[in-house]
C-alpha cells in the first residue's frame, strides 16, 4: 500500500516552473531518499505534499487522502522537520516541542525526555540563542516524540554534528522497524545510502531517476584499479570502459556494471597482479546526472 502517491505534480510560481510533472511513490514501512541539488524542487514537492502549497496540476495523496483538501486529517498522522527550522525567538525549545506535540495530539512524555537526552538539547534556552543545529534538534525531538505513521524530513541533518547525525540515523531506523514510512530529503548521499530503501533524484523540477538502490546501481559504474603482468593495450577499445588512466601496466578506469564480465575476461589473459574495485556509489550516479550525461563519474577508487 502506498503511503505517499504523487502523480504529475506541477507547480508554477508566476512564470517559473518549480515542479514539472513529479511522480513519487512511497510504500508503507519504506524509507525513501529524495535527493537533488538546491533549487531542484525538493522542498517545493514536500510543501505540496504538506498541503501548504497547492499544486498547479497533478494529484498528491497521502494515506489515500488528498494532500490539499484533507490536509488536517492527514497531518494527525505525519511529522515534519523542515530544512530551515524557524522558531519563535522568545519561546524556549521545551515550549516549542510541547506546542508541536500537543497540536499533533497524543503526547508521550517519556519519549520526549528520552529524545532530549539523546540529542543533548537544553530545552530551557530561548530559541533565539540556538544555533541551526540546535533548532533542528528541537524539530527532530518534536517529530520523533509523536506517534506518526509518516515522517517527512527535509534535509534534517544539515546542521548536526556527526555524533548527532548518528543519533538521527538511529531514530530513523527505529521508526522504520516500527513499520513507519519516511520521506528523507538529503544532501548527504552516504546517509541516504545507509538509510534508504528507495531513492528518487530530482533535477530542475523533474524526477530523473527513481527506484531501489539495487535497481539504480545497475545504471551506474564500478571503479576498477588493476595491475597486470603484461600491458593491456586493448582495454580502451572495450565498450563500457570510461575515464581510462594508464600508468605503465597499471590502469584505473570505470566500467558500466553490465560490461564488467567482458572486461574481467579480457584482463585475465594479461595476468592480473592486483585488482581493486569500489562499489558503485550513489554519489557517482548523482554526479553523472548533474554534470551532464557526457562526462564520466568522479567516484574515488578504494
Amino acid at each position, binding site marked *: 500500500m502506498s503511503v505517499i502517491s504523487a502523480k504529475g505534480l506541477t507547480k508554477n510560481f508566476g512564470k517559473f516552473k518549480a515542479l514539472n510533472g513529479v511522480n513519487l511513490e512511497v510504500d508503507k514501512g519504506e524509507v525513501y531518499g529524495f535527493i537533488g541539488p538546491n533549487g531542484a524542487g525538493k522542498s517545493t514537492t514536500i510543501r505540496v505534499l*504538506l498541503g*501548504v*502549497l497547492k499544486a498547479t496540476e497533478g494529484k498528491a495523496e497521502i494515506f489515500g487522502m488528498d494532500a490539499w483538501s484533507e490536509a488536517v486529517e492527514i497531518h494527525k498522522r505525519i511529522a*515534519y522537520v523542515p530544512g530551515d*527550522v*524557524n522558531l519563535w525567538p522568545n519561546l524556549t525549545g521545551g*515550549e*516549542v516541542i510541547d506546542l508541536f506535540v500537543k497540536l499533533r495530539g497524543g503526547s508521550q512524555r517519556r519519549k520526549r525526555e528520552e529524545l532530549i537526552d539523546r540529542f543533548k538539547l537544553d530545552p530551557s534556552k530561548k530559541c533565539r540563542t540556538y544555533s541551526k543545529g540546535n533548532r533542528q534538534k528541537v524539530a527532530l525531538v518534536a517529530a520523533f516524540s509523536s506517534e506518526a505513521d509518516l515522517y517527512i524530513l527535509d534535509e534534517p541533518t544539515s546542521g548536526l554534528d556527526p555524533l548527532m547525525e548518528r543519533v538521527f540515523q538511529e531514530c530513523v531506523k527505529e521508526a522504520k522497524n516500527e513499520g513507519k514510512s519516511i520521506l528523507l530529503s538529503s544532501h548527504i548521499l552516504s546517509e541516504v545510502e545507509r538509510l534508504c530503501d528507495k531513492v528518487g533524484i530530482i533535477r530542475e523540477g523533474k524526477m530523473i531517476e527513481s527506484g531501489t538502490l539495487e535497481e539504480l546501481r545497475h545504471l551506474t559504474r564500478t571503479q576498477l584499479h588493476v595491475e597486470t603482468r603484461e600491458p593491456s593495450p586493448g582495454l580502451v577499445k572495450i565498450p563500457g570502459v570510461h575515464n581510462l588512466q594508464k600508468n605503465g601496466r597499471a590502469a584505473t578506469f570505470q566500467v558500466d556494471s553490465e560490461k564488467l564480465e567482458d572486461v574481467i575476461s579480457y584482463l585475465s589473459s594479461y595476468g592480473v597482479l592486483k585488482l581493486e574495485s569500489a562499489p558503485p556509489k550513489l554519489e557517482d550516479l548523482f554526479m553523472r546526472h548533474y554534470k551532464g550525461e557526457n562526462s564520466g563519474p568522479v567516484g574515488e577508487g578504494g
Partner: protein
Amino acid sequence: MKSRLFKNISTLSRFIFKKDRFKMALWIVGIVGFTLAVAVAFPDLYRTAAERQQLAASMVNPAVTALVGRGYGLDDYTYGAMMAHQMLGMTTIIAGLMNILLVAKHTRADEEAGLTEMILSLPSGRLSTMGASMAVMAVLNSIMAVAVGLGLFSTGIESLDLEGSLLYGAVIGAIGLFFAAVTALCAQLTESTRGTIGLSIAVLGGAYLIRAAGDVSNETLSWFSPIGWVLGTETYVNNYWWPIILTLAATLCIAVLAFYLNTIRDVGAGFFPSKPGRMTASLFLRSPFGLALRLQRSSLVFWTLGIVVLAVTYGSVLGETEIYFEDIEFMEEFLPVMEGVSLTDQFLAVLMAVMAIIITIPALLMILKLKGEEKNQRLESLFSLPVSRIRMMGSYLLLAMLSSVFLLLVSGLAMGSMGVAVIEEAELAPFITSSLVYLPAVWVMLAVTALLIGFLPKYTGLIWLYLGFSFMTVYFGDLFQMPGWLTGLTPFDHVPGMPVDEFNFMSAAVMIIVAVTIGAAGFFGYLKRDIHG
C-alpha cells in the same frame, strides 16, 4: 588607544551609507517633504490673521495641548507659530522613530545576525561599528536639520524667517540625534533587536507622555522630557537656542555611556540578564490561540499601559472643558452649541473617536502578526500539524477582536474614572458605552485586514493607509470640509458620536454584517492560497 578602538570607522561609515542609502533617503525626503507640504498648505487654509486667531483660540484646550504641546505666540498666531505649535511636536516623534529604527538595525540587529562578529574578526576597532553608526546618524540628522531649515525658509512664507527656520530644523535634528544615542545605549542593555527597539520606543513614548502630562498640568514636569526641551525653543516666536545645546550635551553623555558599556561587554551579550526559560510549555500555550497570545503578550501589555495613560490624561482635562470653551465666541464653529448638550459631552465624543482609532492600531497589529509569522517562515511547521487554516486565522482574528473589546473597555473605564472625579454629577457608564460603540467599526477594519491577508498578502500595509485616512476624516473631516461620500468611506464615520448622539442599532448591525461578510471572504482567500513559508 583611540585609533585602536575606532580603526576602520570611516570605511564602515561609508558602508552603512551605501547599504542604507535608499532607506535613509526615504526618511529624509519624507520628513522634509511632509514638513514643507504642511507649511505651504497653511496660507491657503488660513488666509487672514483673523482666521489664524480663531484657530489659535480653538487650539487652546488641554486635549490639543497634550497632543501637540503648549503653543507659543498664540496672541499673534503667525504661520511660523502655527508650524512650531501644531507640527513640530509630532515631527520630533517621527525623527525619533527614524533614528531608533536605523540605529537598532546598525547595532543590535547586525550583532544578533552575527555580522558584528564578522566585522570584529577583521582589523577593525571594538567601537568601530557603533561609532560608524553614530557618525552616520550625526551626518544624517545634520542633513535633515539643514534641509528642513533651508526648505522652510525658501518657501518665502511671511514669518518663516531664516533664524526660526534653521532652529526648526535644528530641533528635529537634535531630537533625532538624541534618540540615536538612546538607541545605542539600549542596544548595550538588551540582548535582542526586539528588546532594543522596544526599550527605545518606550523611552520615546515616555518622553512624549511626560511632555503631554507636563504641558497640561505642571510646566516643570515637561522639562524632564527631551521633547519638552526642544519644544521649549519657542521656535519662530522667541527662538531660544540653548535647549538645542542642552539636548546635544545630553546626547553626548548618553553616547559616551553607550560607548563605554560597549567596550566592557562581550559580543552578543547585554547588560539586562536573560532569564533561563521554561523547560515545558504551560497548559495555556498549547493551541494556535495560546501561541498567538503568548507571542503578543508583551505588546498587549505595553499598549494597554499607553492607552490607560492617554485616557487618564484626556479624562483629567474634561472638567476644564467648559471653562476653556465658554470664553471663546467662535467655538461654535468648532463644536456648534447644541440644545441640551454640554460642551463636555461634545468634546468627549471627539475624544472617544480619537481613542478608538488609536486602539485600532494594536488590534490591527494582532492580526497582522499572522502575516509576519508567514514572512518569518514560522507557519509552515504549524501547518504541517493538524491545524486548519481556519483555526489559524481564526485564532489571530479572535485575539484581535478580544483585544479591541478589552482596550476599548479599558480606555472608557480609565477616562471615565478620571472624568467622574473632575466633572460634577458624571457617571461612569456613559464613558464605557461611548467607547464600546466603536467596536463594530474596529471590527470592520480587522475584517478588511483579514481580506488583505487572504487575497493580497504582499499588500497588507494598505490597511495603515486606510486607518490614516480614517483618522484624517474623523479628526479633520469638518475642518477640511470633506464631502460626505468621502468621509463615508471609513467605518468610523458611521459610528454615532456618543454621548451626544443616540446609539444607533441599525448602523451597528449593518457594520457587523459588513465585517462578517468581508471577514468571511478573507477566510475564503486564505483557504485557497499558497502559504509562503
